[in-house]
């Protein structure tokens, strides 16, 4: 009989060939874990190629999940458990494991041929190189084939394909995950393919039963549900959360959405996600390029719709001129930049947050606009809503920064109450705003101009990218007018500082060091800070959700610490920003490896400075 061991948190990484269904197995495990009530963060890790050669290290696809009985913040620095479906999966991951970790392998896959493909000279399962780990050799393929024998209409190839569900079964047993979540999902997913459904269910149960009945796996772990704030949760990745945020903004504002986009990794998933949402009146158009996509969104905005476009770095370059036009037109529009590792084509599937300066300054002339950044996968929902709110309230294009990590990673999301969502009111102009006249650039108290849409009688007007006369919007080359308009555009954006939440500090008495972050460094920074505090260190942290303007109290907060450390996955862009803005000697921790930050790295950086 197996023992049961209690654990606070576990990091599992399940890896195999890209054809092995690792994302599916990982995703299902995450879903069951979520429903079970653990807090969790996931991180998929795909190969760059569409189909890298089977069995090679380059072709390995992995899924990491960190789950715990308390709230957690990152997908975990290093796995405690590695499931390796073939030698390549072992090879590409074993170096990250700490001594004493558990490795579960699909023994059947450790054939001579596969070992060679993975670049192994000898079989690591037998040459003693894994002695520091707890290795479990499970003949997953053959057990799956056996479990599905006799199911009519299932070839042995189909059967072998179900081995990911066998592995999922094993893991489900090891961590006491509820079976029904996965069973129901299999039943729905394969409803139209009877034999495959039966085979997958059989494989899943076989894996689970294998754990239950054999002595090979001797320990079962218990990770209790986490005491998260009350409410209804679901597991979301950043892409889904962004899509939901946009749809929520569309529904609550009454603005139909036009989402115009050109495919690009890692933003394409958002295109796919929204293309399915016709039920919500979302119109999606795949443009001929990013320039067209931005113009289409802007054209829709002129028509009184919620114009949204999404892309990644290279596409942002191309949209720059159109974003500048939107700044001049002062029309609401949301531009989503799912950042990836650059420059140029860079490493398209890898995360990096190095487009901050571009978001702020990547257009000619003085063309300021609000910049919002998502911090966690679930936060993408709020960030998207906030981007729309600012765009509509201030009649301005807004850049929403996300990144490859946030887009693909998932975590539990406390589903908000519809009634408590921020109110977004288009406030379309309905009539004259100055006696009997309509002045398209007459501003309100926010310095926002009226949004008068075609079809509205009497408000017809023509606007363009040429400098406009204050008030009337007519073309003007008058020197003072240009100065005034330039200031007004800037002040409008600066004024938003009064309309956003102040910078909140996670302070601890005695802390003299503040760690400041933005974007997806949220999780690692919080986790790193926690670790330091667990070791008795005094440290504070704060996170910027708005990069332009910065919250009104930012300077005050930063100045109240002796040292400020800015942590970001670029060469120090935010740190330059706060240095310029507040003249404080912010220090910089940067990472540029096309990988998310690790809590351990933040911990290390903090400890170095205490």
């Amino acid at each position, binding site marked *: 009989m197996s023992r049961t061991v209690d654990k606070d948190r576990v990091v599992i990484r399940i890896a195999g060939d890209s054809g092995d269904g690792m994302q599916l197995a990982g995703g299902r495990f995450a879903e069951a874990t979520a429903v079970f009530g653990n807090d969790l963060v996931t991180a998929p890790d795909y190969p760059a190629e569409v189909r890298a050669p089977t069995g090679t290290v380059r072709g390995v696809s992995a899924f990491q999940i960190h789950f715990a009985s308390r709230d957690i913040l990152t997908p975990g620095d290093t796995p405690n458990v590695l499931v390796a479906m073939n030698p390549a999966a072992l090879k590409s991951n074993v170096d990250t494991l700490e001594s004493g970790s558990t490795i579960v392998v699909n023994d059947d896959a450790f054939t001579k041929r596969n070992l060679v493909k993975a670049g192994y000279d000898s079989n690591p399962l037998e040459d003693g190189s894994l002695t520091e780990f707890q290795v479990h050799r499970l003949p997953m393929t053959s057990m799956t084939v056996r479990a599905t024998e006799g199911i009519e209409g299932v070839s042995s190839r189909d059967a072998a394909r179900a081995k990911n569900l066998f592995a999922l079964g094993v893991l489900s047993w090891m961590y006491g995950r509820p079976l029904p979540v996965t069973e129901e999902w299999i039943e729905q997913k394969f409803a139209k393919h009877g034999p495959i459904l039966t085979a997958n269910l059989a494989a899943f149960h076989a894996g689970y039963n294998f754990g239950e009945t054999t002595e090979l796996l001797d320990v079962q772990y218990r990770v209790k549900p986490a005491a998260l704030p009350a409410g209804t949760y*679901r597991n979301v990745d950043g892409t889904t959360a962004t899509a939901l945020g946009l749809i929520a903004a569309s529904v609550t504002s009454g603005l139909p959405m036009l989402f115009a986009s050109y495919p690009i990794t890692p933003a394409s998933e958002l295109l796919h996600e929204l293309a399915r949402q016709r039920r919500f*009146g979302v119109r999606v158009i795949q443009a001929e390029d990013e320039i*067209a996509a931005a*113009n*289409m969104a802007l054209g829709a905005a002129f028509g009184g719709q919620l114009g949204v476009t999404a892309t990644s770095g290279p596409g942002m370059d191309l949209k720059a001129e159109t974003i500048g036009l939107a700044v001049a037109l002062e029309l609401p529009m949301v531009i989503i930049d799912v950042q990836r590792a650059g420059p140029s084509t860079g490493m398209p599937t890898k995360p990096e947050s190095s487009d901050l300066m571009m978001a702020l300054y990547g257009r000619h002339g003085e063309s300021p606009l609000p910049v919002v950044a998502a911090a966690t996968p679930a936060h993408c929902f709020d960030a998207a809503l906030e981007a729309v709110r600012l765009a509509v309230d201030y009649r301005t294009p807004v850049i929403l920064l996300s990144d490859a990590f946030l887009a693909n990673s998932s975590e539990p999301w406390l589903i908000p109450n519809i009634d408590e969502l921020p109110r977004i009111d288009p406030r379309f102009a309905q009539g004259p705003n100055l006696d009997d006249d309509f002045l398209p650039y007459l501003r309100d108290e926010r310095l926002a101009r009226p949004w008068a849409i075609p*079809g509205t009688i009497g408000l017809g007007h023509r606007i*363009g990218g040429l400098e406009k006369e204050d008030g009337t919007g007519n073309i003007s080359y008058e020197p003072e007018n240009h100065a005034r308009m330039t200031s007004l555009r800037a002040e409008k954006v600066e004024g938003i500082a009064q309309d956003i939440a102040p910078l909140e500090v996670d302070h601890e008495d005695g802390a003299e060091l503040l760690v400041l972050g933005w974007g997806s460094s949220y999780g690692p920074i919080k986790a790193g800070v926690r670790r330091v505090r667990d070791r008795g260190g005094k440290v504070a942290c704060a996170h910027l959700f708005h990069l332009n303007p910065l919250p009104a109290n930012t300077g005050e907060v930063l100045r109240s610490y002796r040292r400020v450390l800015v942590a970001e996955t670029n060469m120090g862009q935010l740190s330059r920003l706060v240095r310029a803005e507040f003249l404080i000697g912010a220090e910089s921790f940067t990472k540029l490896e096309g990988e998310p930050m690790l809590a351990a790295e933040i911990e290390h950086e903090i400890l170095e400075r205490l």
Partner: protein
Amino acid sequence: MAVNTHNHMSGNGSGSDAATFTKQDFASGEETRWCPGCGDYAVLAAVQEFLPELGLPPERVVFLTGIGCAGRFAYYMNTYGIHGIHGRAPALATGLAISRPDLSVWALGGDGDMLSIGGNHLIHALRRNMPIKILVLNNQVYGLTKGQASPTSAFGKVTKSTPFGSEDQPFNPLALALGAGASFVARTVDRDRRHLTQVLRAAAEHPGAAFIEIYQNCPIFNDEAYAVLTDKDTKDAFQIRLEHGQPIRFGADGERGVVQRPDGSVAIVEVADVGEQDLLVHDAHCADPSRAFALAHLSQNVSAPTPVGVFRSVVRPVHGESSQAELQAAHETVGPAELDALLHAGATWTVN
């Protein structure tokens, strides 16, 4: 969506409001800033005069323009309008037309704007058959930037950017549009108000993307490029009027005509030589675009008798049409309950 807007469902470019409008209703009154004698004036006047025919009030009409002399057009129309950035009007128009099918959406630009920097948006809008009318004011030169070669400038043309003569063959804009799959392709001339109006009318009636090349004179940088088409003395000899269902013939007494040649091209002949019965009868609605393409190659840069009129006008699916009703209905009916359900989709769990 908004108070004061008309019914969204009446389809692009057509309407039948009881009120009638006049040319003045479509003139913004803003002082026109083209050079004296510029062909753009004539086009503006013709458009303003034609628009009341749509039966749509000015606020249901939108002009989206690019940068260039022609791009200034937007400012002079008493409609809604955007003077966008260089070359992108078809994309702006696509975004607007697809989301507001109740509007009549016009995209307008010069030959540089639409065929040089904006060439890609143009061909894609035509391919997609977006419900927009695209007017290309072709003066075979860059006017606003003071006289560089454009993609329609003749081979060998000396301009500021080609002091030794252009080394490029110009585009045949109609051929390009046909190659892109345009469902409506026409050509007309700035100085021929009646013809211009006919073509505008045909374009407005066409469901889907209409491509109209307007030969436009730039007296400053390329004067009289099309004079043979409009000068009394030469007009008859150079204008070949295409009229659907009519044999293609021209000349003061209709003494010349167009026939099919065995190699697939079309050619000009003396009617007397071939006999009336052999003349091509123009079929603008022919499903296959090959004949229209052949006609487009009769002349390049008005060096020979040049066809004007509607080369092609066929009906095919308009982008967005099939999904329009569904999306409109979805947006109108969807509310907090559906949103709540969407947010709760998939596996959820509750923490108490």
